[in-house]
């Protein structure tokens, strides 16, 4: 307990003191995770909506798969991306291993199933209500999917946030494909893991507090925006 309070005080000093090491790590973490979520959303939102309105053989298996992939272990994704990007791998020529781009790719793969599965669920629930009307008005599957996405946009905020939470919190994938190189690929979660093993608890705890603070703040802002919009649009 003494350790904890001493470390907390030191962490607070680090945060309030504007430590440049800390600042760089936080900025890189946000850049990587936000990029990953944007990419996953651009691919996953249309995919989820398309899955909701389409009927084809094997669809149910695909739905089960995307749901299952939400629990994908980050270290496994890290390993697969590592193998793809390593010198001898199929994408080795791009030289992306141990760069922030590799971390973005790995996190995007982790977030994608979450976005697809949660979007499909929300869109499918809405589709039950909208099906008759949209078909009556002559909407084809593509138009229906776009309309559904727009109409469930407030629920999708939560979907994207779930993806962001996943990306910001994971350590396994970015550790493997980024390598936790100081000043290059070190992000909050990998730094916490490293500093804890080194025994530098104040930095680890300070980073942990910032990480939680950022996730809470992002969710709070999104929640307030969503509530305001829901009141406005019903």
């Amino acid at each position: 307990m003494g350790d904890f309070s001493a470390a907390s005080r030191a962490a607070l000093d680090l945060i309030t003191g504007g430590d440049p090491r800390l600042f760089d790590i936080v900025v890189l973490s946000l850049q990587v995770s936000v990029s990953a979520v944007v990419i996953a959303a651009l691919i996953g939102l249309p995919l989820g909506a398309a899955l909701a309105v389409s009927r084809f053989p094997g669809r149910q298996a695909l739905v089960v798969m995307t749901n299952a992939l939400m629990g994908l272990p980050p270290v496994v994704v890290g390993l697969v991306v590592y193998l793809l990007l390593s010198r001898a791998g199929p994408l080795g020529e791009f030289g992306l291993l141990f760069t922030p781009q590799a971390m973005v790719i790995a996190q995007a793969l982790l977030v994608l199933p979450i976005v697809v599965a949660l979007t499909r669920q929300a869109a499918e629930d809405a589709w039950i209500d909208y099906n008759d009307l949209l078909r009556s008005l002559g909407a084809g599957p593509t138009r229906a999917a776009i309309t559904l996405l727009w109409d469930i946009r407030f629920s999708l905020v939560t979907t994207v946030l779930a993806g962001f939470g996943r990306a910001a919190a994971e350590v396994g994938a970015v550790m493997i494909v980024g390598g936790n190189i100081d000043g290059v690929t070190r992000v909050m979660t990998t730094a916490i893991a490293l500093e804890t093993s080194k025994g530098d608890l104040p930095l680890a705890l300070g980073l942990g507090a910032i990480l939680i603070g950022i996730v809470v703040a992002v969710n709070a802002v999104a929640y307030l925006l969503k509530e305001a919009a829901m009141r406005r649009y019903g």
Partner: protein
Amino acid sequence: MSGSMATTNTLLPLRLVDVSFEAGGKRLLDRVNLVIDAGPRTIVLGPNGAGKSILMRLCHGLLQPTAGQIDFNGPETVDGRRRHAMVFQRPVMLRRSALENVAYGLALAGVPHARRLREAQDALEHVGLKHLAAQPARTLSGGEQQRLALARAWALRPELLLLDEPTANLDPSAAQAVEAAIQRMHEAGTKIVLITHNLGQAHRLGDEVVFLDAGRVTERAPVQQFLQSPASPQATAFIKGELPWK
């Protein structure tokens, strides 16, 4: 535009020949033969589960018959516009303004952007909702939402308007406003086919009654005649069971 209309056959009559519909091993419509002509307002009456909604969905193309034929006299779409529209018991409002809800239907019907808002505004005015054009549709009252659904259908200038118990969930004054809007559409020349449970509404809005019981059309008669002296025992029992209409 008017040229293509002139050379196109009228949508009606709509002919149903031996139309059956089965689902889950149950025959929900049983060899229905029916001709729906332009002009008189047709009321579809019958107890719950008689197959009224299924009949309407088949006519609108939302369901396909398991047997039999459903044929319109002319093509169902002209210049991208469907010539028949449907209003559902529970109005589905898109999460956007009232005006945009109407414009959405026009967009799907291929109406150019420049004309959409103008036509949507006209349709809103038609159902007395012009003052609520900018309001998000989901914040409207139940009656206003149903009138908006009518406006959305009306904007498409359908020759045939199918209405599935449009006032079932509304209080009397809201129902009255919806009935007035339906009446205006009839007066503008749109063929009205209306499902209702309400004999009063049948009396107020109908010219003829098609009575459905257990998936079969058991009677078709002018509304006065049907209400005063129904020919079939099923219709007699139905009228007795419903509240008196006057």
